[in-house]
């Protein structure tokens, strides 16, 4: 007679543990079947000491099991202890090989011949149990493995890592310090991996720490008995077969759903694609009644989500309606909405009132609102000021806001009503706010941070389209045709096209026929002419302004070359509708002509200057001035190398200097030390798991205490200005040092123990201090200064 339970949970990953623990908590008869002799095999097989993250941060955890970001060992120990405490009925070494029956009477066959009967089955076997193999002769040889538990286990071996994903890259990098590592990539790029991993592996390959074979498939693996190394891997490469002798092959090819088993249970897959996942209902029930699927196999790969599902699925089986874990948070957030009844109703209201959010799925909208804030500013309250560096995005749910379109004349106002949005200009261009916005009557806004909005724009095409169009219309209106009604611009907007240029590409060349005017959406452009066989830079044009208007007005070929200083996006306006607009509105023509005249005059001035200035601009562009908002420059003819700047920086920031005076290139006497440029689109922000890097209203890009020390920003920064360090806020006394010696103020603090957690440190322009950056204020000779690219170019033009 087989043992009989109400609920059988298959798999003891985060979701299975959570489900079984909740069942135990409720006193339901249950069994947790685990194929291994330990819990949570996927986590168990993580690299030793791996930091496990608890994303998404805002989502609350609802489970009898606890979970917080931390080391693999710590999490596993906690779970082991909690499983015992809750009295979960775990059955180890119980691999389920077959499942038959129906709701109320399932029979589970185990690999050892035993059977288990259950009324309900919760399947939470994840994906990692089914690692993808190489699919070639010798794929199961003794020296081939598909996991890496502890990289330090191997020393002085020749190891081949196969794969181009995050796991393969992380393994290769962890192994390469003590072994000779070759990584085999089927394609020619590592672009499927996270940006930071991509950069790290390319650098390791460039430095020769890891060898790489691109465009290669695995032919076979064979032993060569009695020889050293004992194995040999045969690769099919573009140039023929290659044999690599090795001690070990580690293939990290990802995992696929254990489809055969799942299908044998009667569950349908929506497509033939090996990566496709079975469909589940809103209560996680599969097409087989009574059989529930949660966790990664149901498409929820994050630990916290999976644990919440474990709790919910037991509630559903018990016939209760479990409200989502984020419900209380959303209720608190949306409670301020006029006429609030419940979360579902509020979501509907938002979706119907704000068209830009209409294309979102329910889950996406929930996540979006969790990240956002609902604000109800009183009439006249300033939402943001012109020239602020804030970058959040606002959607208007109700009421109006007033945009002050002319900075010199506060009475000129553009009113935006419910359903519209604003703030997209700074989000896209990365530059200061272009106008001041005040709340109107009965205003209710959703404020969304930059990261959530960028994520949404990149994942939902419909949102991107709407935001792009609005950007286009408003950019044209504010930069080119301020007094023209929106309707009159429709033809210009309709025919405009969005173009992208890599750094160094030219938008157009001197002598080309004019093909339109380029409005710079992001990045910056240099304008140059060839004089005496050399390219002389005449001007620098930042995002939000336009280039190429000369050709339209004068009908002459392009008089200069416009070149992308960094990655640039522009909006090209077609000449015909634009000329029609000029003819209809003389005011626009005057505006453009005025701009044209200033340009000609300043270009003429620039041309009079020596080639040296052009050299300086070229040098500064190469140093990232094109995307900087504020850069530290040292005049080496004044710099007495006293390192006061570094000492001041270290004293201000817990003993870790965030600038390296000596490092960095020098042109003539102008030195660009290794120090943050506060980029318009900070590279460091790209891949920050806790979203700890923020741009402050003053423009400073700074890292908050939320930093987990993962080092992604350090790897992503192209200027090498971020360092991982342990800050120490003890300050030596100046008078004690002067009288008795010891540690001098500004000197490095004593080294901390190995256990202190390193965090990312970078320049924050001394936001905590009055009077500006301490490096500049501490310079005794005036050699150090911080300035914006505009100020730099302006000053260099005056010479």
């Amino acid at each position, binding site marked *: 007679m087989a043992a009989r339970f109400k609920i059988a949970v298959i798999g003891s990953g985060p979701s299975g543990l959570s489900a079984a623990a909740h069942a135990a908590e409720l006193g339901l008869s249950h069994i947790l079947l685990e194929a291994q002799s330990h819990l949570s095999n996927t986590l168990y097989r993580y690299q030793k000491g791996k930091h496990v993250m608890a994303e998404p941060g805002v989502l609350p955890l609802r489970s009898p099991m606890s979970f917080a970001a931390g080391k693999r060992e710590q999490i596993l120990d906690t779970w082991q202890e909690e499983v015992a405490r809750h009295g979960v009925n775990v059955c180890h070494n119980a691999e389920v090989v077959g499942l038959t029956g129906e709701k109320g009477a399932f029979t589970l066959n185990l690999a050892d011949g035993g059977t288990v009967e259950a009324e309900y089955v919760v399947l939470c076997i994840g994906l990692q149990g089914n690692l993808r193999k190489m699919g070639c002769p010798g794929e199961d040889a003794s020296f081939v493995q598909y996991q890496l538990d502890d990289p330090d286990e191997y020393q002085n071996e020749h190891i081949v890592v196969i794969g181009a994903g995050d796991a393969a890259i992380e393994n290769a990098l962890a192994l390469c310090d003590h072994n000779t590592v070759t990584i085999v990539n089927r394609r020619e790029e590592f672009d499927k991996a996270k940006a930071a991993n991509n950069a790290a592996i390319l650098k390791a390959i460039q430095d020769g720490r890891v060898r790489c074979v691109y465009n290669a498939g695995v032919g076979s693996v064979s032993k060569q008995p009695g020889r050293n190394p004992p194995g040999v891997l045969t690769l099919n490469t573009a140039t023929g077969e290659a044999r690599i002798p090795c001690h070990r092959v580690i293939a990290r090819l990802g995992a696929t759903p254990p489809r055969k088993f799942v299908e044998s249970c009667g569950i349908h897959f929506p497509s033939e694609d090996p990566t496709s996942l079975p469909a589940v209902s809103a209560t996680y029930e599969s097409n087989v009644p009574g059989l529930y699927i949660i966790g990664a196999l149901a498409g929820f790969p994050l630990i916290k989500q999976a644990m919440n599902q474990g709790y919910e699925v037991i509630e559903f089986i018990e016939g209760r309606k479990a409200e989502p874990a984020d419900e209380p948070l959303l209720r608190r957030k949306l409670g301020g909405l006029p006429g609030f009844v419940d979360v579902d109703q509020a979501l509907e209201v938002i979706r119907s009132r704000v068209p830009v959010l209409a294309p979102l799925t329910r889950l996406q909208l929930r996540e979006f609102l969790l990240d956002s804030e609902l604000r109800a500013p009183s009439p006249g309250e300033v939402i943001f000021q012109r020239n602020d560096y804030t970058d959040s995005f606002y959607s208007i749910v109700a009421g109006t806001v007033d945009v002050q379109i002319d900075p010199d004349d506060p009475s000129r106002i553009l009113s935006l009503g419910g359903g519209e949005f604003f703030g997209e200009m700074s989000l896209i261009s990365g530059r200061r706010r272009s106008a001041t916005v005040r709340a109107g009557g009965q205003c209710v806004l959703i404020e969304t941070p930059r990261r959530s909005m960028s994520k949404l724009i990149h994942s939902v095409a419909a949102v991107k389209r709407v935001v792009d169009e609005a950007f286009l219309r408003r950019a044209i209106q504010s930069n080119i045709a301020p007094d023209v009604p929106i309707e009159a611009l429709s033809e210009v907007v309709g025919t405009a096209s969005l173009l992208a240029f890599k750094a160094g590409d030219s938008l157009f060349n001197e002598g080309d026929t004019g093909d339109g005017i380029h409005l710079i959406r992001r990045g910056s452009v240099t304008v140059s002419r060839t004089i005496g066989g050399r390219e002389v830079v005449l001007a620098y044009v930042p995002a939000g302004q336009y280039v190429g208007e000369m050709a339209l007005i004068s009908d002459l070929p392009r008089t200069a070359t416009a070149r992308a200083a960094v990655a640039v996006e522009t909006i090209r306006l077609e000449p015909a509708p634009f000329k029609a607009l000029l003819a209809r509105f003389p005011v626009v023509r005057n505006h453009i002509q005025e701009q044209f005249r200033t340009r000609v005059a300043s270009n003429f001035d620039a041309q009079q200057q020596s080639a*040296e200035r052009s050299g*300086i601009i070229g040098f500064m562009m190469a140093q990232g001035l094109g995307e900087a908002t504020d850069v530290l420059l040292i*005049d080496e003819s004044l710099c007495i190398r006293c390192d006061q700047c570094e000492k001041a920086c270290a004293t201000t920031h817990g003993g870790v200097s965030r600038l390296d005076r000596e490092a960095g290139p020098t042109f003539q*006497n102008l030195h660009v030390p290794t120090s943050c440029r506060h980029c318009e689109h900070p590279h460091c922000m790209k891949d920050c798991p806790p979203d700890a890097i923020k741009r402050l209203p003053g423009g400073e890009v700074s890292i908050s205490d939320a930093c987990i020390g993962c080092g992604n920003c350090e790897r992503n920064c192209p200027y090498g200005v971020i360092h991982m360090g342990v800050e120490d806020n003890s300050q030596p006394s100046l008078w004690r040092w002067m009288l008795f010696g010891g540690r001098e*103020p500004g000197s490095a603090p004593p080294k901390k123990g190995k256990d202190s957690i390193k965090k990312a440190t970078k320049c924050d322009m001394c936001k905590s201090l009055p009077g500006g950056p301490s490096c*500049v204020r501490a310079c005794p*000779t005036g050699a150090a200064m911080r300035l914006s690219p505009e100020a730099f170019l302006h000053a*260099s033009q005056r010479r």
Partner: protein
Amino acid sequence: MRMHDSNASDTLHESFLSFAGFRYLKLALALCLVCVMTYICARPPASGGTWLGYSLGTIGALLIAWLALLGVRKRSYHATLGTVKGWASAHVYLGLSLVVVATLHCGFHFGWNVHTLAYALMIAVVASGIYGIVAYGRLPAQITGNRAGGTLEAWIEELDDIAERSLKVADQIGPDVHQVLIRSAERVRIGGSLRDQLFGPRMTKAVDRQYEQLRQQLATTLRSKTGRFTSIQMQWQTLSPTEKKPRRVTVNVPDAQSTVMFMADQLSGMDQDARDAEHIRSLLDLLARRHDLVTRINRDIRLHALMQIWLYVHVPLTFALLAALIVHIVSVFLYR
């Protein structure tokens, strides 16, 4: 004061000397003018004991105390009372005006006593400060010029690399060359004592003599085989662009040149063995680069030392001055 006439950032950066449109130069000049005018007009003529003497003395003492506070302000990184640049500017000009104030204060009365000692110390402090201004004005640009885009760290790394590579090449030529090279590498001197830093390192005589003996010996053996010298010497000349080095930077030249001469001898001694000649040529290249690097590094160290040395005089003398000043003031009031 600045050496360069075409600086890229002339309009960007403002030197501490021209801070705020020479505000403190004007202030210092005004102070001097007032002091001189009052001195000329004063009856009875000023000396330490008159009302004018006391006034000038008070001004001078306060100035000295304030000037000494620059060291404190410089290290108070959180202070917001002006910028360090402004303080430095005021320090320079008001410090110079102190000469006038103090001289008028003593009314040109000098003697062998603690009062004149304080005066002498003050003049010495000011004099070292003037050296500092000159050094700060001239040397930074020279350091940048000498660096030519490199960094000290990268240079040292390259030196290690050259040592390794040249040994490998030497191995292929013969053990005697290897030996000579090792000795030569051992004798590369970088930095060293204060004297070495300021004037460039020198080799100890014993090492010199020993090395010279070895070189002579080898050279003689080789010369007995062939007699061609001149063409190789010319090659060395072209390989060594730094031959036009400034006065007194004589670092390692005897050493590097001896090694090169030895190599040259080797080259001329080769009986048309093309491969060895090639090795020797690349060794000559490496040695030339090493010579250039060592020269640059030592010049870098020397320029830095010249730029900082004065502070080691200026600051201790300041403390001595403060002590003498206190004795001076106390004794004036006690033994008047």
